[in-house]
């Protein structure tokens, strides 16, 4: 058994949320750079150039890339040989709170979503997904998720007969309906299969895949390619002001599902696709 102190977990969580909010990933940065060279709309080019400039300022001055520093989501792989000294959930939430308070990040979490909607002032509770895995490490992946894009996500319980064409059409339709709202150019995460809950979760994880990587199954990679092409043919463009860069990438993952079903969950991520990972 390897002993890990709850304090170490708190510190790592804090470090990762600060990093995620200040520094955009290399893959996203390079993707926007590439897009700005290919974009044919003048306004689109200006928007992409402002986005690149903003990433630079944010990383240099350690200020939030976007004021919507999102709800704090964590995907953790906890090694089964690890023994945590202290309260696991408390440590994670404390790490989030400290990052958001000390890092000048906006606290966007409200209790009771319908009536009071009172700000929790800590950006907690964090949304924590933990998988128990072999080994003695703790792998933490954090993603602050803003709601401009989250609000444009969708789930459909499609039927098996809808096939790959139906799925691609649903993805393209979702991006079309979203228009400028999720701050294009977006990264689209999709999960086909599973159940309503596991599909939605897997779609969220799909947005965190490296931009530029296809699904290893060529049939799913083909759907990713087709969806991206059709999305960029919509003309929505950067900031929705017209252009040929509406999405940077489409990631489709799949899960085993019921013979009667084909759930399709789509999670949209804005261009500020922020995530950071670390290992304890």
């Amino acid at each position: 058994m390897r002993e890990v102190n709850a304090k170490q977990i708190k510190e790592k969580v804090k470090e990762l949320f600060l990093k995620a909010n200040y520094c955009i990933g290399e893959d996203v940065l390079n993707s926007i750079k590439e897009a700005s060279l290919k974009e044919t709309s003048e306004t689109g080019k200006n928007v992409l150039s402002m986005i690149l400039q903003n990433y630079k300022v944010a990383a240099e001055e350690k200020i939030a890339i976007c004021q919507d520093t999102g709800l704090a989501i964590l995907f953790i792989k906890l090694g089964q040989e690890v023994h945590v000294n202290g309260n696991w959930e408390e440590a994670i939430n404390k790490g989030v709170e400290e990052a958001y308070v000390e890092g000048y990040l906006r606290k966007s979490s409200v209790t009771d979503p319908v009536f009071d909607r009172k700000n929790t002032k800590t950006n907690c509770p964090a949304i924590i997904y933990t998988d128990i895995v072999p080994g003695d490490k703790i792998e933490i992946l954090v993603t602050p998720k803003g709601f401009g894009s989250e609000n444009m996500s969708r789930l459909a319980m499609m039927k098996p007969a809808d096939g790959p064409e139906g799925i691609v059409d649903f993805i393209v339709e979702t991006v079309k309906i979203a228009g400028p709202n999720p701050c294009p150019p977006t990264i689209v995460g999709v999960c086909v299969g599973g159940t309503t809950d596991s599909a939605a979760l897997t779609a969220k994880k799909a947005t965190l895949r490296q931009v530029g990587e296809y699904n290893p199954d060529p049939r799913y990679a083909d759907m990713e390619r087709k969806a991206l092409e059709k999305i960029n043919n919509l003309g929505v463009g950067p900031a929705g002001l017209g252009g040929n860069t509406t999405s940077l990438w489409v990631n489709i993952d799949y899960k085993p599902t019921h013979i009667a079903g084909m759930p399709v969950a789509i999670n949209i991520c804005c261009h500020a696709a922020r995530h950071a990972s670390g290992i304890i």
Partner: protein
Amino acid sequence: MEKIKKISTPLTDKVVQDLKAGQNVSISGYIYTGRDAAHKRLIDLLKEGKKLPIEIDGQVIYYVGPAPTPPGYKCGSAGPTTSYRMDPYTPALLDLGLKGMIGKGLRSKEVVESMKKNGAVYFAAIGGVAAMIAKGIKSSEVVAYEDLGPEAIHKYYVEDFPAIVCIDAKGNNLYETEPPKYAK
């Protein structure tokens, strides 16, 4: 169209009527911030016939909930939030003389009709360019609803705030006119 038109607040009817959809602007002057919760409170006050905590006539509201202010800055990262959530509250404010709104994303038919009726403009600021926008905010004070935290109404003094006229006072709408030009 000039490359970038410099305009200052408060906005006059003439300035508003002259602005065309697609015009890049650089806004200087005082603007107010407000989003979901603040708008709801303002409208509730109007329904009760009470006075509003801020002047509306000629003003510009920026839909934003900024991040806290780091040392050396006057304001934290402050990019626009998605405007459609304020649609239910907007026509009443336009009726009171609100002349400009800065945000991002689509607006409802009702809002556009009210903009045409009252003579107002909707500017799009670029979502996610929040750090750079923060640098252009030269002063910030909370003028109402401090308890709402980031959702409070702030009064910002902005210098050269970059935006684009997205929907003009005639109802011309970039979100409608531009994408079809690039659709295949």
